[in-house]
């Protein structure tokens, strides 16, 4: 059994925005992408994923559209809006700064 970390609170939004920024993607894809990019360290279950996605959608940072997947199945695809891009840039900068700060402290 491998060890899986739970997400640091407050980080899910920015992680999802980052993944969505790479092109329209459905919820399942986001979860898979997160697993892959974090080298299986970070995982999100659907119970947190979808409410978070809908919150982002309601906030206007992402938009959603029903489209066919490569296999021709209907799925809800999310894409970044203009304000979403802005927010991602801000958050990205903030988290990079924070992570660097953490590393300095922890490795001092």
């Amino acid at each position, binding site marked *: 059994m491998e060890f899986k970390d739970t997400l640091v609170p407050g980080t899910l939004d920015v992680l999802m925005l980052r993944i969505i920024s790479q092109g329209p993607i459905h919820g399942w894809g986001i979860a898979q992408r997160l697993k892959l990019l974090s080298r299986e360290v970070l995982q999100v279950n659907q119970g947190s994923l979808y409410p978070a996605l809908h919150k982002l959608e309601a906030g206007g940072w992402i*938009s959603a559209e029903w489209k066919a997947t490569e296999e021709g199945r209907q799925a809800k695809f999310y894409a970044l809006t203009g304000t979403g891009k802005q927010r991602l840039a801000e958050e990205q900068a903030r988290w990079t700064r924070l992570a660097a700060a953490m590393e300095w402290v922890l490795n001092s």
Partner: protein
Amino acid sequence: MDTAGGSHGVGAELVRLFRRRPTDAELDRELQFHLEELIASHLRDGVEPGEARRRALVEFGQLDPAKEAMRDIRWMEPLRRWWWDLGYAMRYLWAAPGFTMAAVLSLALGIGANTALFSILNTALLRLIPVERPEELVWFTIDPADGSGRRLNYPFWESLQGDRRWGPVFCTFATTGSVSDAAKTERVELELVSGNYFGVLGVKPLRGRLIAPDDDRHPMGHPVAVVSHAYWQGQMASDDRAVGRTLRINGTAFTVIGVTPPGFAGSEPGFRRMVFVPMKMKRVATPGWDALDKPLVSWLQIGARLPAGADRVALGHELHARYHAFQRTHLDADRKLTPGQKEYFRRWQLSLETMRDAALDRRVRDHLKTLAWVVAALLALACANLAGLLLARGLDRQREIATRLALGAGRWRVVAQLLTESLLLGLGGGAAGLMLGSWCAPAIARQFPLAGAGSEFEVRLDATVFAFTLAVSLVACLAFGLLPALQSTRLDLLRAIKGAGQSRERRRVRQWLLAAQVAIAVVLLTVAGGFGLRLQAVLATDVGFNRERMLVAEIEPMLLNYSNTERIALYRRLEGKLHEAAKRTGSGFTAAALSTVIPMSHFNWSTLFFVDGKPRDVIPRANQVGPGYFQMMGIPLRQGRLLDERDDAGAPRAAVVSERTARMAFPEGDALGRHFMADPRAPRESTFEIVGIVGDIELNDPRRPSREMVYFPYRQWPFPAQAMAIQVRLSAEGSVGTALTSIRQAVAECDGDLPLYGARTTEESLDMLLAAERLSALLGGFFALAAALLSAIGLYGVLAHEVALRRREFGVRLALGATTRLIVWPLMRETIVFTLAGVAAGLLALAAGGLWQSSVAPAAVAVLLLAASIAAWLPGRRAARIEPAAALRCD
């Protein structure tokens, strides 16, 4: 920048403002997609399907059912919930265009057929002529309708005036006449009406005034006319000063006194009368016969407006007694009728028939009633077919439905969702059916003059038709939607999610549906085949003359005020030209003749038959003919000679009778050479020698047995006839067009002003005559084929779906060495059993309904079995061709 509909941009922002959260249904779909992807990922990792599903469900985590329930309570507004369902249903149907198209089209066919027939019935039977309280109006009708129908006499009508038992009683008679305006002369539909006609009907004038009792007092004393709104708009170009203008009707000047309101065109629905004149002016309207003083000449239609609350049947009995009391004195006093003819009058059964029932002949109504059953059965079949489709679809959606149920949605919630989809399909099919029906119905009404030749119902969409279609659509969508919805939601959750496939019971339901479809199709095919056979039998009836390739056109010299001698001179000249043209190649015809009776039309004359001053017991049909008539018609000579050029005006009067006439009037067989008198008014001029006997024919209607005939040379007939029919036999290479040009040329050479009208082939006349039969055969046949096709498609759908579902299983069995026969046969066997059960049920229904036709039913069964075999063979072949490896790889 995207527009408002896009998912980005200002528009989307606005949309988002109003949409607080995704709908439940949308959420379900999103979660379901996630769940399925999860399962698929496990499968890719090589986990067994059952285990993959189990694991996925565990990882996915069940939503708290209590939370779900909370959500249902929070959103109690059922309307709002239904609104979500509607959106979901729309997206769902949109995403399955093939299924949606198939469903909507088959429904459209069923609903369209019902709408078309209903709108015709609505116009012909339900919507009456535009007068005050039309439901109170009745006709005095003679039963059994043995040809006399509603024909009574004028003295009887006069005797009823002052008697208020039947309410006010009016009378009317329709005919055609020549009407000349300042510019042109036309043949126009006339209606002779009693003075109280418009008052009793309650028609109010659009312009001027209508005919009143004071306009109908003295014979030939009231040259006034009322024109219909259509005539005023068309022929009079909506002239503001129409009232006061003069119209010449058959040469006599009439003053226009008023215009009827829009839509009013006489008292018989389906016919368009243009000009109304007082009854007392009858001698002008029908030159040559008056009969206003004849108690035993039957021609007049009598109608009444019954007092409110009157007992129609009882009043009918009173009328019957009253008529026979009136007639007895006249019958007793009459010396021109034989005892047999008097007996014929005494047999008459009089009753009161509502105008609504009278609009269409009973025969035509029976045809329409049968057709109504046919279209209802077609709709039932379409519904059964759709229910089958939906059940199949329900199987495909088992996982989706199971997921939704598992996520805590109540069963009724899902049923409502599924019904919403049916509702959408039903409304879609209804809309398409309404379009189809409203497009077909007027065309059908034009093609098939149901109220008789020359009639045409103007079929329009109205609120009644609309409501009917809506109701039919709603009933249909419940009928095909409820069963599958209940079936699909009553499932074993675990089995369904595990993909264990369909339950046996559900397959049974589909097979019963299939059997029902087959049964309906058997009945429809047999009934339609019966219609077709009957029509064919009528068409194949030997009418005694050759009615192939015959063209008829009419002239009416009366329109140009010809005198009787001028008329005969004109005919003689015309005959010469036509006979010349017939010998010429390129004229388009090989023989030509004149006669006053048009074959296959309702128009006919009868004559009395006196021998040695005493009437004989026969009332033959009379026809005035010119030389060459029998040769052109192909009527064979039995004895004596035919009429020819020597039987001209001034020559000894000679006539030809048919075999039946000869036999009935001269039972001793000595008809040839005997004399008879046709009209006691002119005993000398109407006495003819029988110079020939010809074969029997039925000139007017092939459905009736042939009648007695007498043929007079028109040149020797002492009374004026209204119109003359030019009849020609088309040559083998001659077209109607060339023949018509030749005829027109011949007429023009005789009188350049004489119009030629009513050109038609005898086949066309026959088509008009057999409108109801043709309608039944054509529509019935079309609907029956549609029914066979629908049930074949249904069968194919059931089997193809079964094969697709069990592909994996078949693959395994094939891989394990099963022969294709072992795979395909059990699959086919059940289908065959249910098809045969359907056939048997259909045959039983035929026998029970008295519709059994031994000449058609086997063919109907054969057609269905053939269709069923093809429909079953295609999926069977697919099952046999499954490649085990491929089948196993996919799932």
